[in-house]
């Protein structure tokens, strides 16, 4: 079933074709949990792929909705700056610097400091440990009873991984989930469930705990966890506390919301596409390809934002210096000029890796291989144990124009 066909709450969200183009505002977070955004993006891709909107909530911004235009913006980092930040809304007064929201040269320097923690060689070393933990989590699940897959599997596994990457006290690992949720929510992404003051207060606590870890790692020989890598590197060891916090938020969110929601998204996709589920059971060697397809289909982060540093022509429009530009990855991944039958979930899709979920260019996701490995292991271990992870109710989705996430996914397990 295509996602475009999912019903929308007509009473609340108007049909996109009933609106004049300039009233379409893809920043409206309510579109996403209702799954109404698909039809809106479809119209923009067809009628106005480089689209200008005077948003009340976020100010004026451009929406880039086609795959190739997104690649163009993402690869022209000298024209499209990642500063001051990479989500659609501007920060009110709390904006810790982080390297994803920096330009060259500082971005490159900081990124290079932390990549060894997720290098392919490092990953092959941790693979057996990840597999063991995934197995333990799956073995602890209640069989035949309804439970929330998001909480017991997706959050649990990504949080365990994060605790390992930071070498964070394992028993307290759910704090990482909490801080990640706070970092990725708030008014900047259309979520009004918490105030900036509250976010600041909670993230200050996060910083205090990480400061203690920083001191501890600094006093020890260098290891391969993120904190140790930063604390021992001449280019990062003198970061001020806000910059440290910013980079922590980046690494926590980068490793959390993304993989977590792809772990949930895979369950949703397979349940909505039973023929693909059968294909998978018949041939588990399709898993690596399916992982890329899940990451495309789910697109866990819907957008990244840039700011034009000069006037740029794109798609027949002139983007002016200083304008805000939002690349909608979630729309690029449904562009039928680049991806064949883009609304369909096809686990043996040719060129499944050719999606835009990781972004392209110098800001491309640095944890992509780790994400793929975690999801691959998860499905390999599921297939060893269960004949079906059955979705037994409607998924509950989070309200955000940034994180395409689930808060509740009621499932029932059937053993083999």
């Amino acid at each position, binding site marked *: 079933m295509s996602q475009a066909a999912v019903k929308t709450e007509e009473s609340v969200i108007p049909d996109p074709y009933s609106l004049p183009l300039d009233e379409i505002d893809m920043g409206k977070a309510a579109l996403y949990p209702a799954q109404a955004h698909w039809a809106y993006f479809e119209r923009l891709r067809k009628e106005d792929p480089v689209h200008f909107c005077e948003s009340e909530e976020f100010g004026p911004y451009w929406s880039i909705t086609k795959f190739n235009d997104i*690649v163009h913006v993402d690869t022209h980092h000298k024209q499209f700056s990642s500063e001051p930040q990479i989500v659609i809304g501007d920060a009110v007064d709390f904006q810790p610097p982080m390297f994803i929201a920096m330009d060259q040269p500082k971005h490159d320097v900081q990124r290079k400091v932390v990549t060894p923690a997720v290098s392919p060689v490092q990953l092959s070393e941790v693979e057996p440990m990840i597999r063991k933990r995934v197995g333990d989590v799956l073995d602890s699940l209640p069989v035949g009873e309804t439970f929330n897959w998001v909480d017991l599997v997706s959050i649990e596994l990504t949080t365990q991984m994060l605790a390992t990457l930071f070498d964070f006290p394992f028993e307290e690992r759910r704090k990482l989930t909490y801080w990640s949720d706070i970092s990725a929510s708030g008014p900047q992404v259309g979520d009004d469930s918490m105030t900036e003051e509250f976010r600041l207060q909670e993230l200050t606590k996060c910083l205090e705990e990480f400061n203690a870890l920083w001191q501890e790692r600094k006093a020890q020989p260098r290891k391969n966890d993120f904190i140790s890598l930063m604390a021992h590197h001449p280019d990062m060891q003198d970061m001020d506390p806000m910059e440290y916090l910013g980079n922590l938020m980046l690494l926590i969110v980068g490793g959390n919301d993304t993989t977590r929601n792809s772990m949930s998204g895979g369950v949703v996709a397979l349940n909505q596409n039973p023929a693909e589920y059968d294909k998978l059971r018949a041939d588990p060697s399709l898993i690596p390809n399916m992982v890329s397809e899940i990451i495309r289909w789910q697109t866990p982060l819907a957008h990244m934002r840039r700011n034009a540093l000069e006037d740029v022509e794109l798609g027949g429009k002139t983007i002016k210096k200083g304008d805000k530009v939002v690349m909608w990855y979630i729309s690029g991944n449904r562009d039928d000029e680049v991806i064949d039958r883009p609304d369909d979930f096809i686990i043996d899709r040719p060129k499944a*890796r050719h999606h835009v979920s990781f972004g*392209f260019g*110098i800001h491309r996701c640095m944890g992509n291989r780790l994400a793929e490995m975690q999801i691959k292991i998860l499905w390999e271990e599921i297939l060893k144990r269960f004949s079906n992870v059955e979705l037994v109710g409607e998924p509950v989705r989070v309200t955000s124009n940034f994180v395409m996430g689930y808060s509740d996914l009621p499932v029932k397990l059937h053993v083999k």
Partner: protein
Amino acid sequence: MVQVTYIEHNGTTHEVDATEGHSLMEVAIEKMIPGIDGDCGGACACATCHVFVDEAWLAKTGQKDDMETSMLEFAEGIEANSRLACQIKASADLDGIVVRIPESQH
């Protein structure tokens, strides 16, 4: 036709005929040579087509531009002869070229 030799990290050698004008990334994908992902489709934007160009051929493959240099910074285990295969086009000049594939693409 231009002859190109790809050597996998484990030593497996693939000698293939490439169509002139196709990039060494496109050729590798067409011929199903393992170890070159080419995620961005040749836009010099993902660094998953990293190869080591045999020294004897390095000069003939031309200069890296700024974008390629930037992207290579993020690849795993780069060396002086590292290039992105999507930025090298098969041509008569390169007939016989040998490239090695790294252990993994990031």
